[in-house]
């Protein structure tokens, strides 16, 4: 990825370049479908939209703040121990998020169980800290963090919507497939609840994404 050096003295808050930081990760530079990072949590927690939504918001919060904090500290972090500093920052934020979830949405917190803690090991977060926040100013770093987390979250929600709709006939816990469908013989697809289907769904999303945007296809 090309590192953008923000040398311009004055830049408006939403200059085209900054907007791009926010929008690119959702489409062209999507962390999941293009960089194929953070796949493990996609497999684990996309059975229901509700859990995925909470997960997406958590990651947005962690990533936005982690990028800001690392960006603020970027001149003071000795290069040799930067990974450990980054981990400490992420871990602290994840603990905060975990406590908030336990306090306000206990049932979802139970459902996500260990995967909230595993946000620490989400490769997207570490990747963005290393690749972007360590070399950029605070505001662009913040946008980059939010953008990447949103790119991650959007795929998470898409996969979860497909899996919950076809696997359980519900969305956010509300029944979508009408009862008469079940009466005439429709049956929920049990494979959708199993992890392999998350992988296949992500694969299909990648397929469609590359088909629509030919510049993503490597011609090596």
């Amino acid at each position, binding site marked *: 990825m090309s590192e953008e050096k923000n040398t311009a003295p004055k830049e408006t808050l939403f200059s085209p370049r900054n907007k791009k930081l926010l929008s690119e990760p959702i489409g062209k530079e999507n962390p999941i479908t293009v960089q194929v990072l953070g796949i493990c949590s996609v497999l684990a927690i996309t059975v229901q939209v509700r859990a995925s939504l909470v997960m997406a918001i958590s990651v947005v919060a962690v990533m936005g703040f982690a990028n800001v904090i690392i960006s603020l500290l970027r001149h003071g972090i000795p290069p040799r121990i930067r990974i450990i500093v980054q981990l400490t920052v992420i871990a602290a934020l994840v603990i905060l998020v975990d406590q908030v979830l336990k306090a306000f949405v206990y049932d979802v917190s139970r459902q996500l169980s260990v995967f909230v803690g595993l946000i620490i090991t989400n490769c997207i977060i570490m990747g963005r800290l290393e690749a972007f926040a360590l070399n950029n100013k605070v505001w662009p770093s913040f946008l980059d963090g939010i953008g990447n987390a949103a790119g991650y979250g959007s795929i998470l929600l898409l996969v979860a919507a497909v899996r919950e709709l076809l696997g359980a006939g519900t969305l956010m816990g509300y029944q979508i497939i009408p009862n008469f469908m079940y009466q005439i*013989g429709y*049956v929920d697809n*049990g*494979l*959708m609840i*199993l992890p392999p289907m998350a992988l296949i769904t992500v694969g299909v999303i990648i397929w469609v994404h590359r088909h629509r945007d030919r510049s993503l296809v490597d011609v090596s």
Partner: protein
Amino acid sequence: MKALINLIEKLEPNFHKGGRFEKLYRTFEAFQTLLYVKGDVTRSGSHIRDAIDMKRTMFHVIIALIPPLLFGIWNVGYQHYKAIGLEVDFIDQVIFGLTKVLPIIIVSYVSGLAVEFMFASARDHEVNEGFLVSGMLIPLVIPVTTPLWMVAVATVFAVVIGKEVFGGTGMNILNPALLARAFLFFAYPAYLSGEVWVYDALQEGQQFVDGYSGATALAVMFSGEGNMPSDFDMFFGFIPGSIGETSTFAILLGAIVLVATGIGSFKIMASVFLGGLFMGWILNIFAVNDFMAMPAYKHLIMGGFAFGAVYMATDPVSASQTNTGKYIYGIMIGVLTVLIRVLNPAYPEGMMLAILFMNVFAPLIDHYVVEANIKKRLKRMKKVRIQTQV
């Protein structure tokens, strides 16, 4: 005959570039080659190219599938009337079977070919002939009770995810027909668990005969309840089960066709059977329960073992290509099938999982077989060089 050729030739310009039905050219071409061999032969794909089009190759497999299909159709009727305790003659049994099996075959072909035609048009390649066989295999490996829409969903899934994403016929890692079955097995387990596989919808005034369960032989062996059918019944297939898999005898007839025409690999078939026997025998030695103590040969005539060995494992695309590899691949399928059947409490039948598993490993087996051969030859080269230097 002549009239048909003339008709096709008259229609052809309409489908060429600039013609009225340009978009449907691939569809037209598929039907044209189905009826008459076109001038050109298959250029790419899985097989060594010779004078026959791949469609002809696939037709041999269809011919080999006829015995289990016919037997399956009759057996559906036979089992149904046996279940409700009615004595009817042969014709009625066949007719009943036809009314249940034909819709499944039609749905499987229509949904699968629709997807194939769509992809062929979009990517502008010939329609993949591979589905001619897959479309027939899918109905034969599922129970007759499977709802038709499930057959359609599974077929579409198998063709798109199993074949088209990899680039079409000849590029697939897994056997598409088995993938369709695996999809049904995991997505709708209630319909494929092996409990009741007889067409059991009762009409008014009918009821099951006393003590009738409809469980397959594997389910009986697995749960220890119900009557175990005799070896004779299992070999000739007078038992409940998936449509085409019950009769080992009919399948062996098909196997003769496959081997005689050189399309199915005898090495794979034989080694699958050997592997199954071998594992069954080992389990006999360490037997602690009835299933483990069951004579090894029974594994070969129960469930989908024979069908898998003859039609599924020999799929030229997803099996091993090297000769040594074929033996390893086949034996592993046989061994794994019996292992899964006997030792895994979650799955009564292991053939499907074993073949899919070994499909994934087939390229790896080939790789090491080829590597080993290269190493052997290098060694020989070295020896020769040393001798010449001396």
